[in-house]
């Protein structure tokens, strides 16, 4: 067990190192640099040169990478080239508003998916089941961008019930104000989340429902409720946990689309802007932290499996 953990940890470190090198190289080989002159503005090439010098961006790539690595290992993720502020500070400012949205959407989506998924699995091939199937296909295929605009037109313009822009009204920012700003982005995100999760919950439950031990449990005279809670759910948990754990990194990188459409001040928009602006330190940090989250999420899922499934414990 300990050996396995150590092995996984070393693997994770190697992966993170690989990700940082790959990100660094792609970023620097991609066309453009952070002060790429927009031809519509006048620029001063000598100022660009001095700007790069002052930020050590005129150094050869290996030297730049090593200096980034050594600073990163000491906990210094550098300054954003665009905003001239520490990267960590910029991320910290934007993370709470993103988490507020993504975690809420995740919890609502998962809860709905569990309730509905189990229900339709029991009623396989009923009209409710068919409707959920159709919906779930639609939910995955409908572009969130389009749905967002439709919702804005309906509920922020035609019937102005909710706000469509930002996280709060300028000058306000009370809890009810924030909540009513959350409604539309949440609907878009849950519409998609729920559609995605419900498929998995339904198929996981269905798979177990058809197994012999469930029939045996029923034969022993257990009620439907007992069968569901004691036998079906624990055994269908593994795929559900996998899906949930894999969603973890997305919670932190945000919902780029919803943030873009609803002008939500989160990390997703920040990542897009920084990538467009070739803000190297930000991109490096964000990629590294996303990679770390993916690794952590996988690791957590593995640990959870051990708890949920006694068979895996025996094998380990």
């Amino acid at each position, binding site marked *: 067990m300990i050996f396995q953990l150590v092995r996984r940890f070393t693997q994770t470190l190697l992966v993170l190192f690989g990700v940082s090198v790959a990100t660094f190289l792609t970023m620097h080989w*991609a*066309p*453009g640099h952070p*002060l*790429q*002159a*927009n*031809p*519509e*503005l*006048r*620029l*001063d090439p*000598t*100022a*660009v040169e*001095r*700007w790069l010098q*002052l930020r050590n961006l005129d150094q050869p790539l290996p030297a730049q990478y090593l200096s980034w690595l050594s600073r990163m290992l000491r906990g210094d993720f550098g*300054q954003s080239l*665009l*905003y*001239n*502020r520490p990267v960590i500070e*910029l991320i910290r*400012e*934007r993370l709470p508003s993103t988490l507020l949205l993504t975690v809420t959407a995740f919890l609502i989506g998962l809860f709905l998916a569990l309730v509905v998924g189990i229900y339709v699995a029991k009623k396989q091939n009923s009209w409710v089941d068919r409707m959920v199937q159709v919906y779930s296909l639609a939910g995955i295929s409908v572009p969130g961008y389009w749905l967002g*605009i439709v919702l*804005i*037109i309906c509920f*922020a*313009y035609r019937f*102005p*019930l*909710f*706000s*469509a*822009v*930002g*996280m*709060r*009204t*300028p*000058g*306000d920012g*009370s809890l*009810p*104000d924030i*909540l*009513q700003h959350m*409604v539309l982005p949440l609907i878009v995100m849950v519409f998609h989340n729920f559609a995605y999760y419900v498929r998995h919950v339904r198929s996981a439950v269905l798979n177990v429902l058809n197994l012999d031990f469930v029939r045996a449990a029923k034969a022993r005279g257990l009620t439907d409720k007992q069968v569901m809670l004691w036998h079906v759910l624990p055994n269908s948990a593994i795929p559900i946990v996998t899906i949930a754990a894999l969603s973890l990194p997305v919670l932190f990188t945000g919902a780029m689309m919803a943030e*873009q*459409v*609803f*002008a939500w*001040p989160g990390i997703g*928009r*920040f990542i897009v*802007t920084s990538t*467009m602006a070739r803000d190297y330190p930000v991109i490096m940090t964000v990629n590294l932290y996303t990679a770390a989250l993916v690794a952590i999420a996988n690791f957590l899922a593995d640990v959870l499996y051990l708890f949920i499934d006694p068979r895996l414990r025996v094998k380990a």
Partner: protein
Amino acid sequence: MRRLLPLLCLLILILSGCHGYKEHGAGQESELHVAAIAGPVTLNPIFVRDSASAEVASLLHASLLITDPDTLEPMPHLVSSWDVLGDNLTYIFTLQENAYWTDGVSITAEDAAFTMRVICHPDYTGWLFLPLRYVAGAQEYKENHQSLFADGLIEGIEVLGEKTFSVTLKEPYAPFLSLLTFPLLPAHLLSAVEVGQLEAHEYSLKLPVSSGPYLLAEWDADEYVHVKANPDFFLGKPEIDHIYYRFIPNVETQVIELLAGKLDLIPTAVKVEDVKLLQTDPQIKIYTNPRLVYDYIAINTNKDSPLQDRRVRQALATLVNRREIVDNVLLGYADPLYGPLLPLHFAYDESLQAETVDLAAARELLVAAGYNNLQLNLIFNAGNLVRENVALLLKEQAAKIGIEIQLSLLEWEAFLAAVNEGDYELAILGRGVEADPDLSYHWHSESLGNALGYKNEEVDLLLEQASRLTTQRERTFLYRQAQKKILEDIPAIWLYSRQAIHAATATLEKFRPHPESVFFNVHEWTLKGGEGSQ
């Protein structure tokens, strides 16, 4: 589920009642909500490199001079008056008597001298050195100044009194005044800061002290900049008390918010397709004004290709139907352009207006150049529908005379890289120009901004001559001559100059956008009945 439904309805009702938009009645402070695609990255006016930062800077800072929105002639602003000494080399400027920093300290000639020293300092990385390089001693200061601070003296800049200073140039340079449109930095706060540290200094983020019509109240990283009227602004306290500059990256959302009455102004970049919809709403007014930008097709003559033959370039130039582009693609919100001088420039030549689409002549030119048919490649950037349409129109026209144009749609950064490396035959580009018609920056062979690598000694000579003259009549004559020579060489095909389209609430009055700045007269704007957003 049946039990949940009423609960859900209740929740929706409660939340929808939570609209935070304040109702404005008489006597309450007025608010204006302005849309922006992105937020600013710096509030320091001399490090501005993007349009959002420039717009916010124009709310917060007063520039030395401004240009007239119609004639683009230099006009007094923070500088209340100036004299030019006989040799056209020395300018004596006087600052507004009642101009104060927002902390109550008087804005002085020393602030002006300090700001110009920062701009000329070797560690300064903004874009403003170009206009100041004509000042005597500026180049030497940039090359030889040792200290990390903007101290010492520049030969041509002299503080004469509390409110007066003089600037002496190396040689007469006519456009000089029209380039003094940058704001000042407060010397009393920043003179002890190393110039290399200035861009990342707290001042750029918090802006404790400024000089403009508005002062910073709050800058929320990704939501909005809130500014409030500066009671001590030297032209009087602005009429509108609060302006919220709100970052809404999605233009469709902006339009819907304006229609819903939650925004008051979408400046500059309303899409031509949206104008019709917005015009149907009596609560919304559309404003347009010409700008100092144009789009053109760059022709790469530095690469070995048929385009090195002038006749091939001319054949291409005779294919382009600018009227059609302006009327059908830009729905009339642009001026067709036939040369590098814009209609806003005093030297603009109206006689160039004649459209010259002639397929037969184009074909003849091509054959005369020895080509029966040929292939050319045209690059343009993704996401600009107008340019995409222009590319398609050109391809269609060119096919008629036997030129096959291959279109490559490139991502913005890849597009810029291809342009900078000269890796193209034809490219659709945009360009911003200065208020003064001086063509040197883009067309003088030794200019840093001559991105096309254009070289014509006669043009160089004309441009040098013109910038030393002072009367508009003489300069007009020379610039038109230079333009004629440039047009004969066909280094590019000029297309159109797009207008700025603004959509504002009908309650907004005295809104008068400037070709270079939407907030040009923001201190005069009023909201009818003192009402703002609801």
